[in-house]
């Protein structure tokens, strides 16, 4: 049984101008201990999926269908008290802009102790020992737990936030752009550390990022999102070496690299669509070089074109490499 099984998830935001189709009919699964990456551009719905999994959506979010099974329990339908037990202990999250997710007037260690004591009936000293272990795990000196956030550098704060996400030994950690604001050398250290911890604790990870190079390095399988839809899902090598969806192919040829031959980049024509009024049929058709009449009329089915390779496209590219 997968650890997390997302089926046909649909979630819209209600606004004065109408409904924003943020997440439409998204299905994927995460196995225990597995590292999954979700890539896509701003506004494609990847953060909305993360917030749905934790049920931290704003009030104007409307859940319209589908299910999210975490260890077999549909977490979108359980009462809030049940959900509270799953947050942190079952699923936790490393937020984007970690710099701002620490409270500036509390010592960093105490903030993590509070999270631990909320979920486990242990005394302060035992919780302190646990924080010291966690600091050690993420590569922070345990003495730092008595300091305040302003005494930390950006990379140290990010490590503290990761320690907090791991505090209650969750089975799944969602990392939303965990290193986007950091310099490459710090980013490298943090991503390596998270991956080591994942293997040590057999924790599943869901990485969310716009940076396909980061996702390539940390994920075993990758989902590509476009305009609220999951358009392709496969193991990392297939996504990079044998992508089938025209958007995935385009994304690959728009990304510069410092390795290999210097090559001409290919930008995509046009702009991502307005999700208040998504395009008819396949949402990518206005920018797709392979679009035909059928693409403008009906949305393509998300189907398994090869074992464990899912694509939502009328004209998937097969056998390229």
């Amino acid at each position: 049984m997968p650890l997390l099984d997302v089926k046909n998830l649909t979630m819209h935001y209600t606004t004065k101008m109408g409904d924003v189709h943020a997440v439409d009919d998204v299905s994927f699964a995460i196995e225990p201990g597995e590292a999954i990456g979700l890539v896509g551009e701003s506004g494609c719905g990847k953060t909305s999926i993360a917030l749905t999994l934790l049920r931290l959506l704003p009030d104007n979010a409307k859940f319209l269908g589908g299910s999210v099974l975490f260890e077999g329990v549909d977490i979108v339908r359980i009462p809030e008290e049940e959900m509270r037990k799953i947050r942190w202990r079952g699923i936790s999250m490393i937020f984007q802009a970690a710099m701002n997710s620490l409270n500036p007037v509390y010592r960093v260690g105490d903030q993590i102790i509070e999270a631990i004591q909320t979920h486990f009936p242990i005394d302060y000293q035992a919780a302190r020992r646990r924080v010291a272990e966690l600091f050690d795990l993420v590569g922070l000196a345990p003495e730092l737990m008595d300091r305040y956030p302003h005494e930390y550098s950006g990379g140290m704060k990010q490590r503290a936030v990761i320690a907090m996400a791991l505090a209650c030994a969750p089975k799944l950690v969602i990392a939303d752009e965990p290193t986007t604001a950091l310099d490459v050398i710090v980013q490298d250290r943090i991503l390596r550390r998270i991956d080591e911890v994942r293997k040590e604790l057999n924790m599943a990870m869901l990485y969310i990022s716009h940076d396909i190079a980061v996702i390539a390095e940390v994920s075993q399988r990758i989902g590509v999102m476009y305009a609220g839809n999951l358009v392709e899902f496969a193991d990392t090598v297939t996504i990079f070496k044998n992508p089938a969806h025209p958007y995935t192919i385009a994304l690959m040829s728009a990304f510069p690299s410092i390795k290999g031959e210097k090559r001409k980049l290919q930008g995509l024509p046009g702009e991502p669509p307005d999700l208040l009024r998504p395009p008819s049929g396949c949402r990518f058709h206005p920018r797709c070089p392979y679009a035909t009449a059928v693409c403008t009329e009906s949305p393509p089915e998300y189907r398994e074109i090869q074992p464990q390779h899912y694509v939502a496209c009328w004209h998937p590219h097969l056998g390229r490499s």
Partner: protein
Amino acid sequence: MAEILKLVEVRKLYPVKRRVFSLRVRDFVHAVDGVSFSVDKGEIFGLVGESGCGKTTTGKLIVKLVDPTSGQIFLNGQNVVLIRRGKPLQDFRRAVQMIFQDPYESLNPRFTIFDTVAEPLMIHGVRSLSEREALVAEILAQVGLTPPETFMFRYPHELSGGQRQRVAIARAMVIRPKFVVADEPTSMLDVSIRAGIMDLLLNLRAELGISYLYITHDLAVARYMCDRLAVMYLGKIVELGPTEEVIQNPLHPYTQALLAAVPVPDPTYKREPPNIKGDVAAPINPPPECRFLPRCPKAQEICAHSPHPPLEDAGGGHFVACYLAGTWKNTA
């Protein structure tokens, strides 16, 4: 090729006030510390490094948003540090423009696109409205906002991030500058949009013969854009050379670490961790030795007992500031 811009030993120190008991101590942040380089006509010169290395301050010095503490900056042979006011300053402002990182911050939300792009023309004395309209329409078409009439009277909030950055580029280019400082012009944009903006800047260089200083933290972007590259660390240039040469054959241990840390969008490539110690220090009253010494994995006796190494030619226009460069095989 002819040189358009030249920096000679440029320094910018920012005072930081601090009190030690009742004594007032004045410390200095060495944001840019003895930087020299030159840019040829039509060249794209890249400045890369981590946050706080002084690359943006260098850009601001070149466009005269800040004045240097010491050193000289020459544009077409004229020392721009000495320019103070009047016609010379106006001519300078016309010749040098800047493109900023965030197109959501850099455009006035109450100005239409026409107002924004025409403003530099007003300042530089294009009085006739029809002439301004013609010039704005021409540059909007050139930056890919076509047809121009449909964009001229819209406001920034009606445009996407990529379109806004095109407006910011049009505003910089409309008065036909000779030199443009582009400070992370694509780092706020989505991947699918980014390639288009980079190609636009490359095309404008080809069409208008503009020279750029291209500031970025992203080495893959720098590789795509720049003819030559300088790597900065704590206010100093540690390595400078033709882009492919610096990327393929880095000589400074910092450049080697920086390149080794860049994620590679290829899952079959196994990247080793970068060879570097500790974290970046703040460049407040730095010691005289090599700035990179505390983090250097290869440092030897000589490094601890000598001043910061000078930038020396390692052959083929590839310069490096390291006493030990060339004594090891590149392991990055």
